[in-house]
């Protein structure tokens, strides 16, 4: 599998993105992902948008996330922390407690970002780089799938 070159900056194919957004809206699909060469575009539906039967929502816990990742923010130097397992995403160690991290926090490599529960086992997910939390992509107590981006971090400059 060819890895995406993180330094490559193609002009955004806005026309294509527009078409995909339309297609997602009309088809009722949960997500459309298109890849051409090294550019990958993923368009996900937002729940509550009419003409989207929940039938086709992916189980990926993207409920509540409307996302236009075109191409992915990783190209802007952001680093994605992805889910290593299928499970339920928790932002805090226990209900009622403070979240491990908030947007804007600075984290260091090895610091716990969240918990993913899979088959009653709590997996602590840690930052693999030091930097700033720019975005939290998964919803608390929602399902996440393997390889799903959970956080975007802006790595510290060395």
């Amino acid at each position: 599998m060819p890895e995406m070159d993180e330094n490559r900056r193609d002009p955004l194919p806005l026309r294509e993105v527009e078409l995909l957004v339309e297609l997602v809206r009309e088809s009722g699909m949960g997500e459309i992902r298109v890849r051409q060469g090294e550019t990958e575009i993923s368009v996900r539906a937002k729940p509550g948008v009419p003409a989207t039967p929940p039938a086709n929502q992916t189980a990926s816990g993207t409920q509540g996330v409307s996302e236009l990742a075109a191409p992915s923010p990783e190209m802007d130097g952001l680093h994605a922390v992805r889910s290593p397992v299928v499970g339920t995403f928790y932002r805090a160690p226990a209900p009622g407690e403070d979240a491990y991290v908030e947007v804007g926090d600075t984290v260091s490599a090895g610091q716990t970002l969240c918990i993913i529960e899979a088959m009653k086992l709590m997996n602590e997910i840690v930052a693999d780089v030091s930097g700033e939390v720019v975005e939290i992509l998964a919803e608390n107590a929602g399902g996440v799938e393997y390889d799903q981006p959970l956080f975007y971090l802006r790595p510290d400059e060395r």
Partner: protein
Amino acid sequence: MIGKVLVANRGEIALRIIRACRELGVRSVAVYSTADRDSLHHELADESVCIGPPPAVSSYLNIPAIISAAELTGADAVHPGYGFLAENARFAEICERVGLKFVGPDSSTIARMGDKAEAREAAVEAGVPVTPGSQGPCESEDEVKRVGAEIGYPLVIKASAGGGGKGMRVVEAEAEVEAAYLGASREAGANFGDGSVYVEKYLERLRHVEIQVLADSHGETVTFPERDCSIQRRYQKLIEESPAPGLPGDVREGLMVASADLIGSLGYEGAGTVEFVYADGEFYFIEMNTRLQVEHPVTEMISGVDIVAEQLKVVSGERLEIPEGALSPDGHAIEFRINAEDPSRNFLPQTGLVEVYNPPGGPGVRVDSHLYAGYMVPPHYDSLLAKLIVHARDREASIRRGLRALDEFAVAGMETTLPLHLAVLEDEEFRKGGVTTRFLADRELESEGGLLRLVQHFS
């Protein structure tokens, strides 16, 4: 009827199950690895969950990920398809424990029939004929020699936990027993984590016939007319047909009764296949597969029964719905496995981009496939690209239909087994019918003007 089924598989069989779900109004959940992001089963299911990276051990064999995906999506049942976790008793047991219905028999039946030596004993207890051989596993080479003295050579040593020819040795004479016993046992241990082996009389010229069975929780048991799966290469089936050409009616009757006796004695539920060898007018039980098989469409074509739909009814606690007359064959059906392998280069596996995909159509033609033009065949999984099934009023007509459909079938971007199938259909012995499992081993493939031809050699 159950509400939602998680399909724990990929490729054509995942599509087959999703299609059956859709027709029954059952919601489907696909699971997929990151190598299958562009796969049709991921696209066509109502929901889908990415369960892991490309290697099957981390995705399609990853029990925690699959169970988690079922919990997250609220699935009621898991259909394992064939391969991967389909005959994994531990997986079935975990499903049972977490309250997920496993589409198949209970875990103890899977475990029992998954052990070849135990399955043999179960057949003996049910009064089903088995190949002469050892009673249960052989603990030493002396025990093999004792069986050899009793039933004569050649013998075949087989792995209890085995399948696909692994941990298997043919022994022509007593002098070869020691080396063969150690070799088979070591291979069985390495491949299946269980080195126990058993011994059977080696039948050189035999046909592989099998009986599709279905049983529900209300005590109804159905056995279908046999499939003949004698066209094999290295124990991998390539062509299956039903009914078996030239099989006497009383043998068919005997196979169906024996299979019904076996699954009756097991208290079996769901779909399964009882496999036999047939040689010199006699049949012997070899093993039972406690799952849906690749070649199930052959039976579907001549019976009109949707086997996957019946599986879903059984797991829902409903009764089987088999129309009257479904159990006597309607015409003849043949299935061809189109694999991503190059028959001209010793069946070298092929991967890469499918540039052109144009499956055949017309009367009596069915194609089960996950291919489309632009699809990338990943290197991580098995080589099955498509199953072509043809159905016509008799064998001769279905061979003609097969030739026509194979000729129409266009796949570009890689070599496939399509030309091999054409060559088999042109073979005189095959056309006569009733060939043995040595059919392909006895022949050389010759290339002739871009076409392949089978030439028999006599050794």
